[in-house]
């Protein structure tokens, strides 16, 4: 692995090839993050950007960081994002229409100006020498080199960061701690509610999706005995997300009973 990276770093042509293929893709993925409607899709594109960055790290002689990037970001952080997405579900915030007047033009103008000026500044900056490359620094191996720095020069920040991690973990626990305001309903209470509450319509339980249908998928509403779809049979979050198939396709037409009459 180390050798691969070094080779990539040393030989210009393969790295350039890698860059010019991967960099546009990364940019497109990043832009896509902004433009796609669903948060899940954003998360997937984000994961792509992370992996691409990991590859760039490795290509630049930082294999340790590349691996950490994949493990921490695409592994832990992205997983956390997806988990929270699942927990929170979907709502109106996924809409891309701007509600605050004048914000979008301001944001885009500012961003274009910012990006343009950054690029312009970078193009004008000169180092006065060519890049040195990390081959020399990595001569004992990248991991060893970083470890050397981390446990000598940076040992104090390292310790502080460990404290930060613990604090963050504790903070997350405190924040996520749910203080129950009401008593948890007992089984007995639940079954009383079922019969004594608003209506008896749901006393026998909600209809399961796919029942009486020609399709048994979870996103297809059940059909009532008269052939119309039953909206209550679909999970609320599926409905909110819009992941519901149109059931009219599966509705039964008027039952043709003419054949029976002829008999």
């Amino acid at each position, binding site marked *: 692995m180390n050798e691969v990276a070094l080779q990539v770093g040393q030989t210009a042509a393969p790295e350039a090839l890698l*860059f010019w293929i991967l960099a546009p893709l990364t940019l497109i993925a*990043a832009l896509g993050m902004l433009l796609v409607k669903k948060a899940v899709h954003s998360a997937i594109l984000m994961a792509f950007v992370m992996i691409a960055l990991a590859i760039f790290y490795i290509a630049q*002689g930082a294999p*340790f960081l590349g691996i950490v990037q994949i493990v921490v970001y695409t592994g832990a952080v992205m997983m956390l994002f997806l988990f929270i997405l699942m927990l929170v579900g979907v709502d109106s*915030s996924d809409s891309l229409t701007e509600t605050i007047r004048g914000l979008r033009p301001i944001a885009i103008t500012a961003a274009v100006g910012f990006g343009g000026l950054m690029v312009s500044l970078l193009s004008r900056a000169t180092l006065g020498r060519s890049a040195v490359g990390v081959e020399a620094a990595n001569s004992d191996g990248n991991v060893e080199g970083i470890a050397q720095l981390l446990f000598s020069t940076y040992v104090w920040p390292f310790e502080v960061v460990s404290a930060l991690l613990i604090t963050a973990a504790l903070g997350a626990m405190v924040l996520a701690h749910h203080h129950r305001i009401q008593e948890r309903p007992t089984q007995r209470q639940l079954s009383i509610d079922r019969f004594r509450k608003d209506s008896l319509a749901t006393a026998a339980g909600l209809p399961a999706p796919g029942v009486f249908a020609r399709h048994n998928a979870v996103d297809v509403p059940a059909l009532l005995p008269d052939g119309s779809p039953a909206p209550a049979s679909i999970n609320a979050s599926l409905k909110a997300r819009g992941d519901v198939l149109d059931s009219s396709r599966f509705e039964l037409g008027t039952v043709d009973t003419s054949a029976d009459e002829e008999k």
Partner: protein
Amino acid sequence: MDAANYLYLSALLFTIGAVGVVVRRNAIVVFMCIELMLNAANLSFVTFSRINGDLNGQVVAFFTMVVAACEVVVGLAIIVTIYRSRRSASVDDASLLRR
């Protein structure tokens, strides 16, 4: 290949992240955009490490990752808490300071 190309890429990614923070309403997407900005900065660090020929930049990038991880943990916990009380993950809905 000029290492500066990575810097251009980093600048553009950072800008995209910044715009994302402003234009997106879903708190989770906003958060991902922040992560994108942090990662763009990390890319710059690694590139500078290469240009200068020492590993300090990589170490800083490493620290950034750790801090970013902490931030994600706490931030997502906050989002969950807000969601629990307001039934919404929209950053616009959490505008109680208005008026």
